[in-house]
C-alpha cells in the first residue's frame, strides 16, 4: 500500500494536473455562487471535456469543480441569504447577520478555512480508514437510514431559534410539502389535484430562494435602511479574519469534522444533515448559545466544516464497490468509466497507484483552493457594499432569474413567490422555516426507508427491527429520551427568557 501511495504522489505532481484542478476550482466556485446554478449542473456540463483528457488531468478537473462548487454555494448564502442547496442552509443562520454587521469578509474567510480544514482532514481520514468506512457504509440499510433521519429531524427542530413545539410544527409542514407529487414507492400522484405541473413535486431551489432570500429583501425594504450593510460598519466590509477569531473556532471545526466524516457514510443525505448536526452541536457546547443565529462566526465554522467533511467518506462506496451514493458521485463514476477505470472491488488492486494519485490530488485541491479562494474573497465581499437601492433590486432579479434557470419552468416563479410570502409571514410570527426545509428535503428519504422497512419486515416490522436490525433498535430506543431532553431544555430556555427579556 505504501508503494502505491508513493507512486500515486509522484503521478499527481504534474503542471497540467494542478492547472486544470485550479481551473476547475474557479469554475466551480463561480457557478456555485450563481443562484440557480448547481454544482451538479456544472459537473454534468463539463463532464465531456474530461473524456478527452488524460485520467490524471480530467478527473482532478472535475474534483476541482465539485469542491469549488460546494464552497461557492456558501457565498450567496452568507451575502444575501440565498442558499443554493440544502447543504448551505445552515450557513444562512449567521452569514447574513454578519454581512449586515459589515463582517462579510470575515464570514467568507471563516467559511473558506472551515471548509478546507473539514475537507482536508476528512480526506486524510478517508485515505487511512477506507476499509472500515466501506464496511460501515454497508451496515446502513433502509431501517438504519430511517431511524437516523427521524432522530436528525427531531434534533434539527429543537435547535431552531424558536420553541421546540414551533420547530416540530414547521417540520411537519415540511414533511407534508414533500408528499406533494408522485409518491416515491408506488408512483401514485398525491395532493396534485390533477395539475400536471406539481406532479414532480415542489422544486427545492425556488423554495429555498423564496424562503430565505425574499423575506430578507422585504425586511430591508420595510426598515427603509439605505445600505444593506448598516451605515456605521460600511467601511469595515473588507476587514479580514483575525487569527484569534479563527483559533476560537478550532474546537468547533474539529467537532464538526468528526460529525461530518461519520455522517458522510450515510449515502445521499450526509451533507444536509451534517451541517445541521454540526451547527446544533456547536450551539449546545457553547457558553453563549444565544449569540448563534445572530451573526456568530463560530456558527459559520460549524456548518461549513461539517458539510465539507462529508466529501471524503461519500467517495468510499464509489471507489470500493462502484456504487455512487449521490448525484455528484454518480457523475464522477461516469468520468471514471469513460477513462477506462471501472470503480469496484478490484480498482485498488488493478489501479492502486492511480487511485491513490486521485486521492492525493484531492488533498492538493484543498490547498490550491485555500489560496485561490482567499484571493477572490475581497471581490465577492465588495458586492454587499453596493448601495441598497441597487443591491436589493439586483438580489430580487437574481432570486427570480435563479429560480427560472434551474429548470426553465415558469411554474417555478410561482413557487418562489408563494414561499417568499410564506417565509415572510413565518418570520413575522417567529416561526423558523429551517425545520420545514429539512422536513421537505428529508421527507422522501424517510418515507422511502419507512416503506422499504415495512416491506423487508414482511408484515411484522417490529419483530424484524428488534431481531435483525440492532443498530436501528438502539437508535429508536434512545430517540424518546433525546426528545424529552431537548424538550426540557427548550422549556428551561423559555423560562429564562421570560425572566430576563433579551435587551
Amino acid at each position, binding site marked *: 500500500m505504501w508503494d502505491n501511495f508513493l507512486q500515486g504522489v509522484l503521478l499527481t505532481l504534474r503542471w497540467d494536473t494542478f492547472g486544470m484542478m485550479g481551473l476547475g476550482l474557479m469554475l466551480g466556485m463561480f457557478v456555485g455562487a450563481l443562484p440557480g446554478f448547481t454544482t451538479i449542473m456544472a459537473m*454534468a456540463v463539463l463532464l465531456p471535456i474530461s473524456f478527452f483528457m488524460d485520467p490524471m488531468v480530467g478527473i482532478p478537473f472535475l474534483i476541482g469543480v465539485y469542491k469549488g462548487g460546494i464552497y461557492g454555494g456558501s457565498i450567496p448564502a452568507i451575502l444575501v441569504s440565498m442558499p443554493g442547496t440544502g447543504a448551505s442552509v445552515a450557513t444562512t443562520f449567521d452569514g447574513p447577520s454578519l454581512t449586515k454587521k459589515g463582517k462579510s469578509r470575515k464570514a467568507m474567510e471563516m467559511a473558506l478555512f472551515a471548509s478546507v480544514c473539514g475537507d482536508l482532514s476528512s480526506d486524510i481520514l478517508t485515505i487511512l480508514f477506507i476499509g472500515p468506512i466501506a464496511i460501515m457504509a454497508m451496515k446502513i*440499510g433502509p431501517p438504519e437510514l430511517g431511524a437516523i433521519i427521524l432522530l436528525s429531524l427531531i434534533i434539527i427542530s429543537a435547535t431552531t431559534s424558536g420553541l421546540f413545539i414551533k420547530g416540530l410544527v414547521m417540520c411537519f409542514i415540511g414533511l407534508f410539502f414533500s408528499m406533494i407529487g408522485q409518491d416515491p414507492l408506488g408512483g401514485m400522484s398525491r395532493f396534485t389535484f390533477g395539475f*400536471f405541473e406539481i406532479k414532480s413535486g415542489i422544486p427545492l431551489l425556488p423554495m429555498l430562494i423564496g424562503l430565505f432570500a425574499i423575506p430578507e429583501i422585504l425586511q430591508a425594504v420595510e426598515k427603509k435602511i439605505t445600505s444593506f450593510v448598516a451605515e456605521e460598519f460600511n467601511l469595515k466590509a473588507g476587514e479580514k479574519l483575525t487569527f484569534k477569531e479563527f483559533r476560537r473556532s478550532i474546537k468547533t471545526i474539529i467537532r464538526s469534522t468528526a460529525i461530518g466524516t461519520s455522517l458522510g457514510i450515510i449515502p445521499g443525505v450526509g451533507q444536509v444533515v451534517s451541517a445541521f448536526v454540526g451547527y446544533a452541536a456547536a450551539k449546545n457546547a457553547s457558553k453563549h448559545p444565544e449569540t448563534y443565529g445572530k451573526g456568530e462566526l463560530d456558527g459559520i465554522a460549524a456548518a461549513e466544516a461539517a458539510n465539507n467533511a462529508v466529501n471524503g467518506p461519500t467517495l468510499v462506496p464509489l471507489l470500493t464497490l462502484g456504487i*455512487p451514493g449521490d448525484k455528484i458521485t454518480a457523475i464522477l463514476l461516469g468520468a471514471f468509466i469513460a*477513462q477506462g477505470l471501472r470503480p469496484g472491488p478490484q480498482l485498488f488492486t488493478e489501479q492502486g497507484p492511480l487511485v491513490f494519485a486521485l486521492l492525493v490530488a484531492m488533498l492538493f485541491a484543498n490547498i490550491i483552493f485555500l489560496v485561490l479562494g482567499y484571493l477572490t474573497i475581497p471581490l465577492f465581499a465588495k458586492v454587499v457594499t453596493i448601495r441598497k437601492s441597487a443591491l436589493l433590486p439586483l438580489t430580487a432579479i437574481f432570486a427570480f432569474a435563479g429560480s427560472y434557470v434551474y429548470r426553465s419552468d415558469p411554474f417555478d416563479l410561482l413557487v418562489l413567490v408563494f414561499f417568499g410570502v410564506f417565509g415572510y409571514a413565518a418570520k413575522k410570527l417567529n416561526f423558523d422555516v429551517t425545520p420545514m426545509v429539512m422536513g421537505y428535503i428529508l421527507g422522501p428519504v424517510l418515507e422511502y426507508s419507512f416503506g422499504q422497512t415495512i416491506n423487508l419486515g414482511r408484515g411484522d416490522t417490529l419483530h424484524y427491527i428488534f431481531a435483525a436490525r440492532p443498530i436501528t433498535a438502539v437508535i429508536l430506543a434512545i430517540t424518546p429520551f433525546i426528545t424529552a431532553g431537548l424538550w426540557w431544555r427548550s422549556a428551561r430556555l423559555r423560562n429564562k427568557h421570560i425572566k430576563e427579556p433579551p435587551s
Partner: protein
Amino acid sequence: MSIRKLSRSMLVAVLLVFVGLSPVIADNYPSKPITLIIPLGAGGSHDLNARVFTSVIPSYLGQAVVVKLMPGAGGQTGTAAAIKAKPDGYTLIFTHNYIDQLQPLLEKLPYDTIKDLKSVCRINYGASSVVVRADKPWKTLDDMLAYGKKSPGKLIFTTSGNWGATMTPGARVLLEAGVDATYIPYKGGGPAMQAILAGDGDFMMSFPSQAGPLVEAGKIRALASAGNTRVFPDVPNLKELGYETGTMDRIVMAPKGVPEDRMKILRDAFAKLNTDKTYKKLMKRIGENIEYMDGPDYDKLRPVNQEAYRVLVKKISGQ
C-alpha cells in the same frame, strides 16, 4: 396607388417572402443548436451516453446538440416538455422504452407517447443481468425461481424504482415463471446494489457497468442477462432460457409533426455515428454497445411492446 391596394400588395409580398423562405429554412436545417431533453437525472446512464454522442454528432449535423436534463415524476416532466415543444426539429428527447411505452399504461397522462413522439433512432440498449450475492445457493436462474416458487413471498426482488428499467424485465420473468416475490424499490441502481451486497435483497437486475467489476471480484454472481448477445461469456441470455429479451432501449425521439426532410437529416446524422471511430471508442470505454436501430423500424416495435407491457401491468397491479 390607394392605401388599400398598397397594403394588399404588401401582404402579397410578405406572403411571397414567407413562401419563398420556407424551403430555404429547410435546406439550412439545422441552423442553430438542437436541444436534447433527457427526462432523467444527472449522472445516470442516459446522461453519460448522451454526453458521449453529443460530443461527436456536431461533425455530422453541423450544429451542437445541447443536453437539457429535466427529471421529475419518473420521466413525465421531460416527456411532457418534449411533446409540447414546437415540432421544428430543434427539440428532441433522449428517453427509454419504459418511459415511452410502459408509463402511459400506469395512469392517465396528458399525452400519448406512441402518437405524440416519433423515433429518430435507437442509439443502443442497456442489457441488465439477474445478479445474486455470491454466497446465495442458486447457481442458475431456474434454481432461484424454483426456490421462489416453493416459498411464495420469500424471494426479495430489489429494484431501482417502480416500473423502471430494472424492474420490468425482472417482473416479466417472475410472472412467466409463476413466482410470487416481494418487490422492494430503491432510489436508483446504486442503493439497490448496496441492498444486494448487504443481504437485504435476494436478486436484482443490474447493468454491466455496475455489475461487471463486482462479478469479476466474486462478490456477486450473474444468473442470466438481457440482450441479443451474452453480457458475460458463460452466463445465458434470458432469450436462450425462453424469456423476453428485456433490454432498456435508449431512444432519440422528436415530437410528431417534424417535417420529413428534417427527420431524414437527423436520422442520417445519427446513422453515421456508427462508423465514427471516436464514437465507437468512447462507447466501448463506457461499456455500452452500439446496437443501433433506425427510427421507422423502432416505431414499428413500440405498439407491440406496449401491448406486452399492458398484459404485465394488468397481471401485477391487478388493475
